């Protein structure tokens, strides 16, 4: 649904505020703005008597300026100088494991991998790391990340040690998390410009 991609209401700038109802109508639960597509496939926002029409790409570019603000959460084990910026709702954690060999046509061979669920809980994003708290605790420093991408709605991160993890966000936008994790990686590296986030973070 549209809120999987437009995870910020373009009108009031509230995160996770858009909602699609059973009839497919999209509205903001915070400011009441309504959204629909017109005959030219542009997205129209309607708030009160005001209507705005833009391409979906332009709306998205607009919301990318929004950054989550620092939050407080007693369940987060903060270290010195660490600031917390996001805590996910219910999330599943998967770890990549080898899964045999794929044999295709014409001698095609490929090592296979599978993501196996290892925990369920909440993902925290700080200025220093990703921390997953479920039955166990799984911490990945931002400096350890070698890539960050999304497939379907699962965010996949790989580490410099070669361990790949994925996060399935059960109640919110995976695209949001890909974007905010990438933003924090950019901030972490300061002045270095990041050209790509996958297959490897490259400067």
């Amino acid at each position: 649904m549209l809120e999987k991609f437009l995870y910020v209401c373009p009108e009031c700038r509230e995160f996770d505020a858009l909602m699609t109802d059973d009839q497919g109508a999209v509205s903001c639960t915070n400011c009441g703005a309504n959204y629909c597509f017109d005959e030219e496939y542009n997205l129209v926002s309607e708030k009160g008597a005001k209507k705005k029409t833009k391409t979906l790409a332009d709306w998205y570019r607009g919301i990318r300026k929004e950054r989550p603000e620092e939050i407080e959460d007693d369940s987060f084990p903060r270290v010195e100088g660490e600031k917390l910026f996001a805590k996910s709702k219910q999330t599943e954690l998967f770890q990549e494991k080898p899964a045999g060999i794929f044999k295709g046509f014409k001698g095609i061979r490929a090592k296979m991998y599978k993501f196996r669920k290892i925990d369920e809980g909440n993902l925290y994003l700080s200025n220093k790391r990703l921390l997953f708290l479920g039955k166990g605790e799984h911490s990945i420093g931002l400096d350890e990340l070698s890539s960050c991408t999304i497939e379907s709605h699962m965010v996949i991160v790989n580490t410099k040690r070669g361990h790949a993890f994925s996060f399935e966000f059960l109640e919110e936008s995976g695209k949001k998390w890909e974007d905010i994790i990438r933003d924090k990686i950019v901030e972490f590296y300061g002045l270095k410009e990041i050209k790509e986030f996958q297959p490897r973070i490259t400067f």
Partner: protein
Amino acid sequence: MILDAIYAIILILVKVGLKLKYNVTLKGVENIPKKGPVILLSNHTTIVDSFLLGCNVPRKIYYMAKSTEFETLAKRIFFYLSRSFPVRRYDIDPGALRNAYRIIEYGGMIGIYPEGERTWDGSLQPLRRGTIRFVLSAGVPVITAGIKGAYQHQPRWGGKIGKPPIVISFGKPIEVKAIKGKDQKESDVDAMNKKLVKSILELSG
């Protein structure tokens, strides 16, 4: 032979299904070389792009597909039949590169979505530099393709925007002078990137 027959039957069923569901117009199919190694590069708009291309291109396409699609046995069988091979998008994957070169050496047509993933908003996403480097090192003709109108049927975020007619356009072959990896400069990658983006935008616009 049996597998070829199974594949042919699946292809017929998929073609019929696509014809019933979508109104598709093809342009420039004559630009696709009938034989010899070719790299097909297309914009990636929906989950059915590979079916739309595969059913409308007069050659078998060997697709590079994300490795997470191969997780179940049923999917592995399907991808085997449809001549796809996996690539791990979140790491450098020399195995996928080897498989891609194997297909080129065999004289096949390899299908790659250079954006590396489906578009979220309908616009063309930045092309992966690794794909461009592969194109430069392979040194075989490139056919660019533009899929227009499919995104609105099935945007990546779910739901539906509309049901416009779908147009798939193929460009004239782009001849590529091979530049081996170690000899490639960033300016070579930038130049090829610009060429490919311009071509795909013209075909999908």
